[in-house]
């Protein structure tokens, strides 16, 4: 197990180094037109030359790279061109609502998706199976931003009601904060549940076809232990991996869209604002940050898999 973890850790560190290199190159391969717009549209400097000086692009490349690594190492992500303030401080402010929304989306997606997927697999070919698969196929095709828009429009037309779009922070009023996140989390979770249903059903079917399930049934074990002890426990390692990876991606994507629609001042809004203002140091920082977040999630999922499924760590 230890050598397995060490190996995963080394791989993640290597990937992280490449991620740093790729984000580092964002400003360096920036087309001249973008730099010009940063001067003419946004007024970040008097001319392109001054802008390059300000961003440190005139230093030798090895020095730029060293500065970038040193900056990351010190936990700072530089300053925003637009506000002139520290990016890491702003990220710290923006992160909690995004993480909470993400956790809620995952929770809703799993609570709806996993049981439906299991039922669909166990009752394969029945009306229940058809129904849950149809719902999954439908929700995979509905864009989250449309679902949220329709929800807002029709709740207002039919019931004359709209969820409050005035953000309340967690520290000010935890209850109001959760109420605020309720609808975006529900909509995001519904959208996420579609792929959860699909994956759960496929993996369960795979397991239920195995010989040991037939053996368990043949020796007269009740359906419930067969399903949970033999079925679910064998389906769970790949389930955790796939859902862990897919969901973490979906959550970030969903957060960008839902934060925009429900006016949540989170990380998703931050990158939209920064990209629109061509505040590239911020864009760069968020790219690095989200990629690291995904890498850490992957690492945890990998280690968890090795723990759940001993076959993996022997290789």
């Amino acid at each position, binding site marked *: 197990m230890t050598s397995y973890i060490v190996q995963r850790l080394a*791989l993640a560190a*290597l*990937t992280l180094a*490449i*991620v740093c*290199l*790729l984000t580092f190159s*964002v400003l360096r391969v*920036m*087309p001249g*037109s*973008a730099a010009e717009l940063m001067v003419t549209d946004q007024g970040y400097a008097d001319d392109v030359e001054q802008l390059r000086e300000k961003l440190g692009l005139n230093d030798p490349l090895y020095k730029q790279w060293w500065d970038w690594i040193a900056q990351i190492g010190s936990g700072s992500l530089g300053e925003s061109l637009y506000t002139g303030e520290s990016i890491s401080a702003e990220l710290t402010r923006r992160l909690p609502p995004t993480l909470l929304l993400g956790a809620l989306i995952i929770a809703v997606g799993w609570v709806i998706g996993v049981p439906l997927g299991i039922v669909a697999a166990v009752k394969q070919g029945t009306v229940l199976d058809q129904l849950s698969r149809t719902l999954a*196929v*439908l929700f*995979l*095709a*509905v*864009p*989250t*931003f*449309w679902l949220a*828009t*329709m929800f*807002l*429009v*029709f709740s*207002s*037309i039919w019931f004359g009601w709209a969820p409050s779009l005035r953000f309340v922070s967690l520290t000010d009023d935890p209850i109001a904060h959760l109420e605020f996140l309720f609808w975006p989390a529900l909509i995001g979770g519904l959208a996420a549940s579609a*792929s959860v249903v*699909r*994956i759960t059903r*496929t993996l369960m079917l795979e397991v239920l076809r195995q010989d040991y399930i037939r053996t368990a049934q043949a020796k007269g074990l009740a359906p419930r232990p067969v399903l949970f002890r033999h079925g679910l426990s064998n389906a769970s390692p790949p389930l955790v991996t796939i859902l862990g990876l897919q969901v973490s*991606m979906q959550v*970030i*994507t969903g957060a*960008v*869209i839902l934060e*925009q629609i429900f006016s949540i001042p989170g990380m998703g809004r931050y*990158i*939209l604002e920064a*990209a*629109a203002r*061509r505040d*590239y140091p911020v*864009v*760069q920082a*968020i*790219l690095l940050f*989200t*990629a*690291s977040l*995904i*890498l850490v999630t*992957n690492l945890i999922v990998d280690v968890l898999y090795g723990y759940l499924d001993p076959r993996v760590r022997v290789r």
Partner: protein
Amino acid sequence: MTGKVGGIVLLIFTLSAIFAPVFATHDPNVGDTLERLQSPSTSNFFGTDQLGRDIYSRVVYGGRYTLGASLAVVSLSAAIAVVVAVVSGYFGGKVDLVIQRLVDAWLAFPALILLIALISLVGPSMTNIIIVLSIAVAAPMSRILRSSVMVVREAAYIESARVVGAGSVRIMLLHVFPQIIPLVLILASVQLGAVVLVLAALGFLGFGIPPPTPEWGSMLSGRARDFMYSAWWLAMFPGLAITISVLSLNLFFDSVRDVIDPRLRNTGSM
């Protein structure tokens, strides 16, 4: 059954996109200010928007951009994925190690955030969006293709080709590539629905094909949002077009894939 329905709906969407001038009843970009925010009627099937433009015609023309661009993205990404996968899988060893670590790093970025960042750098033109999106779609596709290439590489006929003195390029082009063509076609077509969704999401967030070009995603954002609460048709029809086209793409190509290669079930959708 569902595959057939999907295919028929897809055909209708494709025809209406190709023959948009025939299907459309109005000019999609010219509004009549006297006809602002009209509800759906026999003259404006889907109503009109805040500038008096006919929404039905905009949805019809929007299909051109959304579906056309998605097709371009899928084709280009398949080409990129094939090159990466064949080179990486065929040579193996150090080449594979380097390429795969790059793919690893690329996959670590959440797709939408990466796309927003890159499009803001290179500018939101049709060509730029297609190229950027293709690279994003190609990364996961190349992973699956690579493992298939690694299986093909071990085949006896590859060994024989090498023995008779065929060069690496020749083997990759004439012996490895043809073997993975069916897989490439399946993987690419199964992605179409997901690509339409990403394109629309980019349009919605303001990083897609810029207005006034009718694009389904961007029709749901910007100024239109201020009027949706009194004019529900502004919100309804572009979204419905996205949902139905993605649904029909998924249903059709999923059933095609199941017929061609049932083992590949659930390899689709990003």
